[in-house]
C-alpha cells in the first residue's frame, strides 16, 4: 500500500512539475537572452487558456486546434510587449524599470480579463479531462498524460532548435555575449524580438494545455507565477535543463509535502529551497557560464 502511494505521488509530482515547466520555460528563455523578467508572463498563460476556451466554445473548434490558436495569441502578445516596453526601455539601462513596467502590464491584463470574462471560474472540459488510466493501483488521467507528452515534445523541439538551427545558435550567441554577436553580423534586436515571441507563444500554448487543470479565472496566472520564478532561479536563470530539473523537483516537493506534511507548507518548503540554493549555489542547479554578475 505504501509503495503504491509513494509511486502515485511520484507520478503526481512529475505531472505537476511538467505543468510548472511549461510556464517557466518561456521565462528562462527570456531571461537567458534578454536578462529581463516579464512579470506578465503568467498572464499570457491565462490569456492563452481563455483564447483556447473561447475558440472551442464560440467558434466550435477542436481542442488541438485551440492549442495552436493560443500559441498564436501568445506570440502576438509577446511581440507587442517587446515592441511597446522592452525595446524602448532597453537603452535606459536600468534593470528595474522594465520589471516594474511588466508589473503594470500584469495588473492591467488581469483586470481587463476580469472586465471581459468575469470572475466566475470557467470549466474547461475536453474529452481527455476525466478519462483515467489505471494500472497496478495507480491512476493517471489522460489530461495528465497529454501534459507530460506535450512538455517533453516542447522541450525536445526547443532543444533541437537551440542546438541545431542557425537561429537557435544565434540566440545562444546573443545570450552569451551580445556585443560580440552583434559584431558577427547577428542583429540582436531581431533576435530579442524572436526570443520574446517564442517564449510568449510557449506561454500561450502552455495556457491551452493547462486550461483543463487550472481553476480558470483571470487570476489563474498569479497562482503559478511566483513558483515559476522560484523554479527559474533554482534551475539557473537562462538555463533550460536546469529549469526542467527544478520544475520536476518542485512538483515532487508539492506532492510529497501534501502527502506527508500539509499542503499549506508547500510554499514554505519551495521558497526555503530557493533561499538555500541562493545561499550555496546562486547560479542554479546546472550552471553554464555567467559567474560575474551574480
Amino acid at each position, binding site marked *: 500500500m505504501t509503495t503504491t502511494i509513494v509511486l502515485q505521488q511520484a507520478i503526481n509530482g512529475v505531472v505537476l512539475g511538467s505543468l510548472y515547466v511549461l510556464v517557466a520555460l518561456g521565462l528562462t528563455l527570456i531571461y537567458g537572452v534578454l536578462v529581463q523578467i516579464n512579470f506578465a508572463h503568467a498572464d499570457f498563460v491565462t490569456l492563452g487558456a481563455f483564447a483556447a476556451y473561447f475558440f472551442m466554445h464560440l467558434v466550435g473548434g477542436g481542442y488541438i486546434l485551440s492549442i495552436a490558436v493560443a500559441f498564436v495569441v501568445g506570440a502576438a502578445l509577446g511581440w507587442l510587449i517587446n515592441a511597446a516596453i522592452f525595446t524602448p526601455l532597453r537603452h535606459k539601462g536600468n534593470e528595474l524599470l522594465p520589471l*516594474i513596467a511588466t508589473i*503594470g502590464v*500584469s*495588473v*492591467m*491584463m488581469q*483586470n481587463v480579463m476580469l472586465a471581459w470574462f468575469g470572475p466566475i471560474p470557467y470549466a474547461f472540459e475536453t474529452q481527455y479531462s476525466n478519462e483515467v488510466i489505471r494500472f497496478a493501483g495507480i491512476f493517471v488521467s489522460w489530461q495528465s498524460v497529454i501534459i507530460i507528452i506535450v512538455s517533453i515534445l516542447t522541450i525536445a523541439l526547443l532543444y533541437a532548435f537551440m542546438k541545431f538551427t542557425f537561429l537557435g545558435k544565434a540566440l545562444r550567441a546573443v545570450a552569451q555575449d551580445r556585443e560580440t554577436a552583434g559584431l558577427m553580423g547577428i542583429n540582436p534586436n531581431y533576435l530579442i524580438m524572436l526570443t520574446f515571441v517564442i517564449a510568449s507563444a510557449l506561454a500561450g500554448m502552455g495556457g491551452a494545455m493547462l486550461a483543463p487543470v487550472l481553476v480558470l479565472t483571470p487570476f489563474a496566472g498569479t497562482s503559478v507565477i*511566483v513558483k515559476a520564478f522560484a523554479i527559474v532561479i533554482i534551475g539557473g536563470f537562462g538555463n533550460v535543463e536546469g529549469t526542467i530539473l527544478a520544475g520536476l523537483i518542485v512538483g515532487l516537493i508539492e506532492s510529497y509535502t501534501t502527502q506527508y506534511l500539509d499542503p499549506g507548507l508547500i510554499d514554505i518548503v519551495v521558497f526555503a529551497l*530557493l533561499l538555500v540554493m*541562493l545561499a550555496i549555489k546562486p547560479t542554479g542547479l546546472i550552471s553554464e557560464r555567467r559567474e560575474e554578475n551574480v
Partner: protein
Amino acid sequence: MSDPALAQHLPGQRAALRSRWLAYALAIAVIIILPLIFNDTYWRTNLTVCAINVLLAIGLDFILGYAGQLNLGHSAFYGLGAYVSTLLIVKLGIPFWAAFVAGVAFAGFAGTFLSLFAVRLRGHYLAIASLGFAVIVHQILLNWISLTQGPLGIYGIAPPPAIVIGGVVIADFHNLAAFFYLVAGFAFLSYILLSQLVRSPIGETLTAIREDEVSAASLGINGAAWKVFAFGVGSAVAGAAGCFYASFVGTLVPDAFFVSEAFNILAMVIVGGMGTLIGPVFGAILLTVLPEVLRGFGDLRLVVYGAALTFVVLFMPGGLAQAARVIAEKLGLRRST
C-alpha cells in the same frame, strides 16, 4: 539629493538649508491643517492610510533608491512589524509603545538578516530572494495558526493608549484626527532622519556604492556593511508602519501582507521617483488617493492603476520628481543642470 556644486559655496549652502527648513515648516503646517479641512471619517481614514504608505515608501526608497538594492519583499517587514507588536500586546499584555519598539526592532533585524544572507547577490537574484522571503513570511503568518491566528484573524485591536498628562487628556487616539497626527508626525520625523542620513557621509557612501561598487571597494569602502545597514533601517521603518496599521484598522489578517502589497509599495516609489526620497512621499499619497478617487470607475479602477504604472515607467521613469523638475525648469524656477 546632495548637490555638490552648492556645497562649495557657503552662502549657497545656507540658502539651501534655509529653503529646506522652510519646506519642513510648510510640511508641518500642511499636516496640521489637513484633518481640519477633511473632517469626515472617510477622508481622515484615507489621510492616515496615506501617512502609513508614506512610511513604507520612504523606507523602500532608502533601500532601493539609495542603497541600490532590488527589494521586492518589503511587505514582509510591514507584516512582521504588525504581527510582532500586536501579538505582544494581545497575548502577553505588553504596553503599546514597548510592543511598538519590539515590532520595529524585529522588522529591522529581519531586514538585516535578509540582507546579510543576500549580501553577495545582486540584481535579479536579490530581487527574487527578497520576493521568496516575503512569500515565506506571508505563509508562516498564514499557517502558524496557533501563534498568529492565521486567516482567522485578530480582532478588536485597540488604538494606542491616550496620552494623559496630569489628568488631562492631550490625545485620544480613538479620534481619527489625533491618530493621523501621530502617524504623520512619525512619518515626518522618519523622513527627516532618512534625509539626514542621505546627506551625511553615510549617504554619500551609499551613493558611491550604488553607482559603482568596484571602484568604491577600491577606495576601501565596505559595500556589504553599508548595504546591510540601509536594509536594516528601511525595514525598521516598514515595521513601524505595520504597528500603526494594526492598531489603526483594528483587524489583522495575513492577506494584508500578501506579496502583491510589496508591488504596491514599489509602485509608489517608482511613480514618485526612485532615489529622491521626497518623490516617494508624493507617490505614496497619489497612489493611495487615486484608487479612492477612481471608485466611480468601478471595474476599470485597477486597469487605470496598472496603466498609470506602466506609462510612468515608459515615459517618465523619474516619476513625479522628474515631472516636477521638468515643470520647474520650464517655468524658469530652476536652472537646468
